[in-house]
């Protein structure tokens, strides 16, 4: 056992001893440095969640700035240069620094627990993913300050849109280094996500508890698996696209240079080949969360489990065949437009299957209306609208009118906010008690929900109208006689309502951490394995790895079914809890836990420095490379045991 408090240490003999002492300290789970060196998936999950939430607030401020500028016609709250940078950062932040890392947070917190494992397959790779995400996000936001005097409104942030179309993003048309910050940051974030994809795929395929076949896994774990494979195949494509853009900008290559025979359309193809699977990467985890929340609060199992799983897999496969529906207006020709039109029309089918199965889960249930299920039902309601507007986009000739208008903005916010964000909040309210042993306050939770639902609809439904009234996207202002002012003003009011709802959430979290009702192991009487261990879970998760006999194994330990299908509680003595509450640090028993390590952080420091080197002074590049190599070698050569 490591000593609980720092004592006077004997004089250092070697570097190896010093490192070992640092790691022992970190292994006590106490203090700031234990967070720096952690490789525990639960701590990494918390790091991801908190960091992503902070970026959510930043992206939200960026959204409010946009809405204030557009609330009235001919406004000049933000000039075109500032506006272009703000909307670029809003989109980039929300996609890459908020929704993806929030999903990663849930993967980290839940997947090992749901499959009965002690950690992920590669704990240090896991930590590396987090640190790369943090440093990539910081690098991107550093660019705000590189344009001159930030406080005078001179920003250096990228201004090419979150989708960075060439040739606008080439040197000739974007001479400042904002786009370089954007490209390098996305590369770094891409590596983080790719590593996460590898990690969770291996974890899910290889580390399930005995008896947990693939079809006894919770749906959330299935969605994580599909998402991981989407990441594994999609990230390399955007990575190459970003390399090509960077080479065009820094080294005068011709990938998107029409003057030398290149075509800007190559960027679009590559971006959307990544981009469409990416939107399913954004939504599938939230769908997984909804699939866990609904059965718990309806008090009956998920309806059609195999079909919900297969539809998720189908969505994963089909997502590769629809990318050019983002390019209908680029003149690809009738054959291409027809092919992608048909594939896009059809991808609605598996999503419909999920929605019907969720409704059937609730049907015949005894729905306990707590905050998590409010958000889950809100997800279904909002996502249905988003999905149906998606069908209207897939009708190619009408998309020629809708493309690049606020009708599209309404659609994707409907599915990404009304869908993903609502789903993620359902998860927060559902699993907060598991990791903090406190329930979030119910009245505040419901207030959050209603304010957010109302605010969301008041913001984005007017945008459907604006799009059909001919308002294009990404315009800094509009004339007063176009009939757009009223709806824009309404949208802005809605945006501030959303902001208020987030404030309510923050207050709820702060209050509940101190004064919230103590949750205990299983406050919701739920179905999956994470509810069978203490709240918060001990470092080793399970004192004994459970033996799994069925889907929703934990539920079946609590309830048997009578002949008519009604559940009957199993007599108290017969219930076998997999948990003996072992002493604080997971007492011996030969439980092997991964050692903490500083090397993932060190290795993650290198790439941003390399990026800054390429942007400012090539001499810095070897420094960054050296740090990366030192980090990687330290990682590889670290002693496996103490």
């Amino acid at each position, binding site marked *: *056992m*490591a000593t609980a408090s720092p004592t006077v240490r004997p004089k250092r003999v070697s570097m190896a001893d010093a490192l070992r002492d640092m*790691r*022992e300290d970190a*292994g*006590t789970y106490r203090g700031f440095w234990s967070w720096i060196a952690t490789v525990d998936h639960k701590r990494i999950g918390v790091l991801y969640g908190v960091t992503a939430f902070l970026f959510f607030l930043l992206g939200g401020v960026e959204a409010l700035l946009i809405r204030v500028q557009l609330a009235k016609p001919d406004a000049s709250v933000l000039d075109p240069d500032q506006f272009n940078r703000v909307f670029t950062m809003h989109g980039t932040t929300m996609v890459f620094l908020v929704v993806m890392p929030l999903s990663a947070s849930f993967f980290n917190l839940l997947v090992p627990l749901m499959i009965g494992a*002690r*950690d992920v*397959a*590669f*704990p240090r790779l896991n930590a590396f993913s987090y640190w790369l995400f943090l440093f990539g996000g910081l690098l991107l936001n550093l660019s705000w300050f590189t344009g001159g005097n930030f406080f005078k409104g001179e920003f250096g942030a990228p201004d090419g849109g979150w989708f960075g179309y060439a040739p606008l993003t080439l040197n000739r048309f974007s001479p400042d280094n904002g786009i370089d910050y954007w490209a390098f940051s996305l590369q770094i974030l891409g590596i983080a996500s*790719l590593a996460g*994809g*590898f990690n969770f*795929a*291996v974890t899910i*395929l*290889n*580390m*399930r508890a005995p008896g947990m076949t693939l079809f006894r896994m919770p749906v959330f774990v299935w969605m994580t698996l599909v998402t991981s494979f989407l990441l*594994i*195949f*999609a*990230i*390399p*494509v955007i*990575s*190459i*696209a970003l*390399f*090509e853009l960077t*080479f065009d900008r820094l*080294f*005068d*290559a*011709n*990938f998107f240079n029409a003057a*030398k*025979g*290149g075509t800007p359309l*190559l960027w679009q193809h*590559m971006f959307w080949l990544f981009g469409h699977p990416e939107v399913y990467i954004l939504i599938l985890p939230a769908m997984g969360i909804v699939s866990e929340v609904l059965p718990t609060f309806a008090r009956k199992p998920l309806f059609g489990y195999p079909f919900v799983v297969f539809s998720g897999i189908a969505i994963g496969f089909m997502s590769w065949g629809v990318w050019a529906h983002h390019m209908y207006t680029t003149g690809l020709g009738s054959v291409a437009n027809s092919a992608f039109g048909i594939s896009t029309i059809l991808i609605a089918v598996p999503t419909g299957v999920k929605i019907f199965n969720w409704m059937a889960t609730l049907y015949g249930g005894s729905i306990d209306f707590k905050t998590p299920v409010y958000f889950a039902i809100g997800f279904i309601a909002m996502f249905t609208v988003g999905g149906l507007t998606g069908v209207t986009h897939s009708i190619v000739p009408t998309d020629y009118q809708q493309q690049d208008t606020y009708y599209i903005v309404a659609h994707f916010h409907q599915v990404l906010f009304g869908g993903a964000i609502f789903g993620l909040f359902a998860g927060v309210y559902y699993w907060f008690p598991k990791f903090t042993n406190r329930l979030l306050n119910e009245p505040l939770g419901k207030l959050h929900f209603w304010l957010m639902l109302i605010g969301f609809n008041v913001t984005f439904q007017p945008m459907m109208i604006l799009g059909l009234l001919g308002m294009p996207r990404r315009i800094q202002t509009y004339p007063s006689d176009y009939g757009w002012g009223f709806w824009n003003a309404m949208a802005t009011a809605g945006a501030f309502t959303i902001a208020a709802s987030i404030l309510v959430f923050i207050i709820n979290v702060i209050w509940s951490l101190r004064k919230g009702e103590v949750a205990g192991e299983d406050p919701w009487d739920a179905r999956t394995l994470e509810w069978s261990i203490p709240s918060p879970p001990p470092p080793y998760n399970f004192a004994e790895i459970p033996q799994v006999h069925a889907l929703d194994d934990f539920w079946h330990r609590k309830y048997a079914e009578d002949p008519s299908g009604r559940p009957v509680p199993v007599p108290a003595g017969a219930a076998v809890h997999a948990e003996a509450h072992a002493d604080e*640090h*997971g007492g*011996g028993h030969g439980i*092997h*836990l*991964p*050692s*903490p390590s500083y090397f993932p952080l060190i290795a993650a420091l290198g790439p941003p420095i390399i990026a800054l080197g390429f942007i400012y002074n090539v001499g810095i590049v070897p420094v960054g490379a050296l740090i990366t190599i030192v980090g990687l*070698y330290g990682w*590889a050569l670290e002693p*496996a*045991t*103490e």
Partner: protein
Amino acid sequence: MAVHELSAGHAETNTGLDNRKLLMWLFLASDCLFFGSLISAYLLYRDRSLVGPYPSDLYDIPFTSVSSFVLLMSSLSMVLALAAIQRGDVRTMRIWLLTTSLLGVLFLSGQAFEFTEFYREGLTLHTNMFGTTFFVLTGFHGAHVSVGVLILMSLVAASLKGNVQQEDSIKVELAGLYWHFVDIVWIVIFTLVYLVS
């Protein structure tokens, strides 16, 4: 608290595959998309250079065939290295790993020579579509080979310290998987970029 590394190799896995081996396969799968994108860009822009020099002006197929053969042979020596460590023969493994590295470096030298020749004939990243797509594609491949050589030399160094024994053969196997992949990618590049015109 007794902390021990979660040894991925020793635990039972659901698929029966070691975690690290599954990781390597997934990594190679993603690398297929990586090279696939670069090769697609090359093929898309194949006949779209507005000015020369053009591939037919520059390619020295016999020369490139020799260096391709060198890389192919390095896969053979890699297999022999793995076979050696699997039967516990560390010294022989080391010899074959060094051979593989040497052949890899020889291949890279051939690439470097070829690139400087092309450069002297007027082909740069900037000249035309051929220059852009050729150098980036083969450059990334060369970078992969270089990383491979580093990995192999690291294994050699580790084995000199006694850290690569028969039970660690998976480390050599993983390096081998990576090396063979990089070799196969070269076969594809050589065929599509050099031979098919």
